[in-house]
């Protein structure tokens, strides 16, 4: 990696901003810090970062507003940071085009995993090199075969229904990234599908019974409570 990815950290708490920047720098990224929304906006246009880590609670403007503004002209990846109890903000941010989220308090592993996934998904359109080259996605003992429309566990076809496969394929395409209920429903059943996510959950329960050893302890298909689902990242 010759050119280091530039990451803009938009966070008004000095200590948190400092800790995030330190972790990023020591992991081979170039970190820049902005304390306010206004500062962030000018730095986005002057420095062209590769990724933004955006705290939703800023002193001068709502982080959501900044995101909405940004999405009118740029698709550069954004990872939002919010407090645990504000799950609605998270969902709103994701539906507005944020790529992922971190819940305070978070550890360095989580921070780096989100950053990696978000940057990778902007590089390749299919989100994953393996999918682009071989038409398959592998994580642990699970393989999703996009050409044959099959999911294999330990080499064996688990016989998903068409909707079930489409859910798994969608999550695999964006592996490592959280997809909101709304996003999945719209991708699967069209923009006019009902916002009720019960059918999706029933589908997911069936998929897990076919793929996971214990559906209540998933290894591949994680729930993000109140937000959506996430596929485990491949090795």
């Amino acid at each position, binding site marked *: 990696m010759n050119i280091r990815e530039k990451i803009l950290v938009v966070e008004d708490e000095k200590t948190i901003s400092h800790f995030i920047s330190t972790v990023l720098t020591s992991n081979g990224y170039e970190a820049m810090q902005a304390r306010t929304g206004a500062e962030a906006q000018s730095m986005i246009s002057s420095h062209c970062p590769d990724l933004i880590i955006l705290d939703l609670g800023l002193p001068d403007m709502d982080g959501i507003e900044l995101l909405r503004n940004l999405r009118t002209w740029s698709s550069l990846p954004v990872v939002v940071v919010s407090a*645990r*109890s504000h*799950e609605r903000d998270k969902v709103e941010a994701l539906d507005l085009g944020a790529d992922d989220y971190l819940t305070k*308090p978070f*550890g360095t592993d989580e921070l780096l995993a989100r950053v990696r996934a978000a940057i990778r998904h902007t590089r390749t359109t299919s989100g994953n090199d393996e999918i682009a080259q071989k038409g398959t996605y592998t994580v642990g003992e699970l393989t999703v075969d996009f050409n044959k429309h099959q999911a294999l566990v330990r080499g064996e076809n688990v016989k998903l229904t068409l909707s079930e496969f489409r859910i798994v394929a969608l999550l695999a395409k964006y592996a490592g990234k959280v997809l909101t209920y709304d996003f999945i429903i719209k991708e699967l059943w069209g923009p006019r599908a009902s916002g009720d996510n*019960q059918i999706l*959950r*029933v589908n*997911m*329960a069936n998929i*897990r*019974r076919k793929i996971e050893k*214990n*559906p*209540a*302890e*998933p290894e591949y298909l*994680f*729930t*993000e*409570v*109140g937000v959506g689902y996430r596929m485990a990242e491949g090795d």
Partner: protein
Amino acid sequence: MQGSKPRNNVSSPLLAFSWRDLAVTAGILLCAAGLCILLQTADTSDGFASPIFVLAVLLVSRFTTGYLFGLVAAVVGVVAINYIFTFPYWAINFTLSGYPLTFLTLLMVSVITSALTTKAKRQDRLLRENEKEKMRSDLLRSVSHDIRTPLTSIVGITSALLDGPSLSQQEQRELLEDARSEAQWLIRVVENLLSITRIGNDPAHISKEPEAAEEVLGETVRKFRKRFPQVQVKVEAPETLLFVPMDVILIEQVLSNLLENAVFHGKTTTQILLSVRQDGEKARFSVIDDGQGIEPALLPVLFDGAWRSQEAEHRGDGRRNMGLGLSVCQAIVKAHGGTMEATNLADGAEFSFCLPLS
């Protein structure tokens, strides 16, 4: 600054008007009048009108707020007695013997009763406020205790690392790990406090949505494993998907409190079984550990948190008690219309709670 200026324009509660009080007043006076009319048909003497209206005025003063309606009732009563119910009927006669006395009596009854009622209500309110205040300060005291201890170690540890003589890498690492676990403890305290604010004053206000029980369990355990990799957790959920109406953030808090308690208070816990099953019209969540069990003396008062402050002071050890976490669990489950219980098993302890399915 602006808020500290006293407000003068607050209308006096003593002469406050409300439609409810108006209705009460009208109702009682009509009853009194009705009774007088009824008695008049049976008895031609006028003696009964005054005592009946004294009673009516007393009742109005008692059951309305402030002085206004009592006074109105007294005036109406006097007019009614004079005008309608004493001879000459349907005429005002100020020369009636004893008339000033009746008027005075009714006024006195009204004023004295209203004064007593107002005072009693004020005392009630003060008592309730005092109770609330006491609960709040108890909670604040125990929480401050919970927070001060880990903060003291974090400050101590970081100062030791910054200013201390050269420590070996191993020692530094150990100190940092301590600091991290203290900080995680603080986060736990704060998350519990946030849960309390999320329930708020009105438990009926929590927003429940049907959630897949197995997903909630799976998520809670995944987070728990990151923090306690040495503890084995087994998760059991029914074969058919079970939807349970809940505020998922709060129930996750309950489950993770119970899991963490199993580790902190079971002391020797190595295995935990987390399960959910349908039990009639309820979903039953259970956390079973193989630790040392619950002190039998604590079992009956475990959830009310009343014992915790004394306990903490006795042992000088806020860390080892589970008061805040469990009272938060209890409050959350109650707000969901559910029930919670704890029992000692032959080998360990079980904490379980039920949530209604509809």
